[in-house]
């Protein structure tokens, strides 16, 4: 009994020390290896592009089982920053590159419409660009100001500063007019959609590919927000989905981008609701 007590402490302590040393050496061993595995790349950025990139990556993995592609969100500007700094191998953007970003290599994989959405029970069916701009600048505060019947206040929902969707919306709809600071800011497409589907008096904008029954896409000057109308030019709210790389893409990154713009890749994106036709 007595011996057991003395022994117990020592072995336990030794075991703990040994375990710790083992952990540390595993750590340094791993640190010794050269970075991440060669067959892996990180694709990061726009939460609008992310779901489609996920699908592409899954299909890509079927063809190249050895490869490993990590798709992450973060937002368009984050993706471009990440590609610039090398944090990500490919950045995803749902807006055009700005002047400062022109030095980056980019490839458009598809176009996506931008839908103006409201609650499904909202009687409003169509708005003009000017009306949307009035709402978002905070000048039109009630539904009746834009032809609606309700006297309720409009709850404007926008995306955060840096979002590609917001930036595309600003360029296409607002021009030089600023979005009201009173607007509710949500940090992802999903959050915007959830909020609009809950709040009868809210209005927001969303990637057309993500619109489903829980929200209603408004017509623009009476033109429905559909793929066809974007292709034939009657619905003007759309932006490119870009893959961005710092310098010419190589190896796996190049293969993945080539896959995305291959016939198979375009077909996948098209089925998912994007405009990926040549």
């Amino acid at each position: 009994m007595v011996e057991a007590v003395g022994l117990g402490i020592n072995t336990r302590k030794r075991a703990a020390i040994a375990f710790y040393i083992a952990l540390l050496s595993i750590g340094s061993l791993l640190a010794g290896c050269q970075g991440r595995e060669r067959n892996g790349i990180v694709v990061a950025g726009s939460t609008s592009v992310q779901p489609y990139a996920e699908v592409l990556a899954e299909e890509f993995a079927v063809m190249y089982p050895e490869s490993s592609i990590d798709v992450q969100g973060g937002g368009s500007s984050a993706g471009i920053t990440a590609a610039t700094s090398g944090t990500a191998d490919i950045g995803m953007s749902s807006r055009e590159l700005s002047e400062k970003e022109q030095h980056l290599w980019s490839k458009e994989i598809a176009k996506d419409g931008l839908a103006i959405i409201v609650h499904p029970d909202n009687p409003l069916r169509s708005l003009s660009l000017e009306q949307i701009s009035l709402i978002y600048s905070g000048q039109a505060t009630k539904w009746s100001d834009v032809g609606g019947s309700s006297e309720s206040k409009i709850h404007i929902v926008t995306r955060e500063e840096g979002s590609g969707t917001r930036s595309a919306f600003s360029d296409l709809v607002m021009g030089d007019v600023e979005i009201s600071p009173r607007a509710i800011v949500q940090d992802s497409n999903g959050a915007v959609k959830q909020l609009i589907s809950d709040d009868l008096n809210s209005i927001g904008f969303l990637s057309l590919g993500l619109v489903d029954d829980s929200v209603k896409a408004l017509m623009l000057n009476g033109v429905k927000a559909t793929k066809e109308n974007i292709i034939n030019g009657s619905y003007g709210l759309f932006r490119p989905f870009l893959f961005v790389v710092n310098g010419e893409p190589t190896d796996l990154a190049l293969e993945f981008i080539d896959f995305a713009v291959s016939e198979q890749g375009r077909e996948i994106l098209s089925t998912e609701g994007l405009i990926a036709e040549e």
Partner: protein
Amino acid sequence: MNKDTISKMVFFILALSSISALALITGFIFIQGLPLFFKVGFANIVFGTKWAPSQGSFGIFPMIVGSVCVTLGATLLGVPIGVCCSIFLVEYCPASLSNLFRPAIQLLAGIPSVVYGFWGLLFIVPFIRNNLGGPGLSMLAGSMILGIMILPTIISISEVSLKDLPRQYKEGALALGMTHWQAIYSVLLPAARSGITAAIVLGIGRAIGETMAVIMVLGNAVALPESILDPIRTLTTNIGIEMGYATGDHQQALFATGIVLFVIIMILNSFAQYIARRK
């Protein structure tokens, strides 16, 4: 070299590394954030009301107001309930119930803040929207969620400070003919004051620092709020929402936001130490 010298050196090196790490993060934040204060001007940042980093406006005054208001709201809701609850646990609670209560509060302290935020989004936000009006995402919703989140901190620390009081305090008060409540109110609570204050300060610290839960329920608008039903943005959510995008001045502006938070926490902490020393 004997073991004593070696161990002292090892401890010294460990301490030095830790302190360097702490200095590194403090220094890093200040080095990243301070240049913007000089470039744009201190007043334009701290008292500026327009936040549009892409256009070079970095006013975080609405966020400071947001942080203060939400925290104040959380304190108003959480402190009375929390302190009452700690009185209950020490003075009124039947033993059978306290065996259920304490572990539950411990568990509540460990629940990820995102779960609170989500719960608030599911129940509190629609409740406010349907009954009080507005978009629901609001200062009030944030205050309520934070008020709940700081309960475990407040309850457990004030409970300890009430429990640690010498038994003679209560016995003496009762022997003077006070009722139970009079004994609590005029003897026990004042005696436990410094502990309860510490609990409140810690709770405030937690409320100011919370990010993910409030991103979900505050609405994050960058304007000064006009009522408690308006969406607002706090300092932490400002960093949380835009952190991923930030480059250049925008990034520095987020670090500047961090500096303001840092200073607020320092002030709170100094206040807490002052209270503790007065005890």
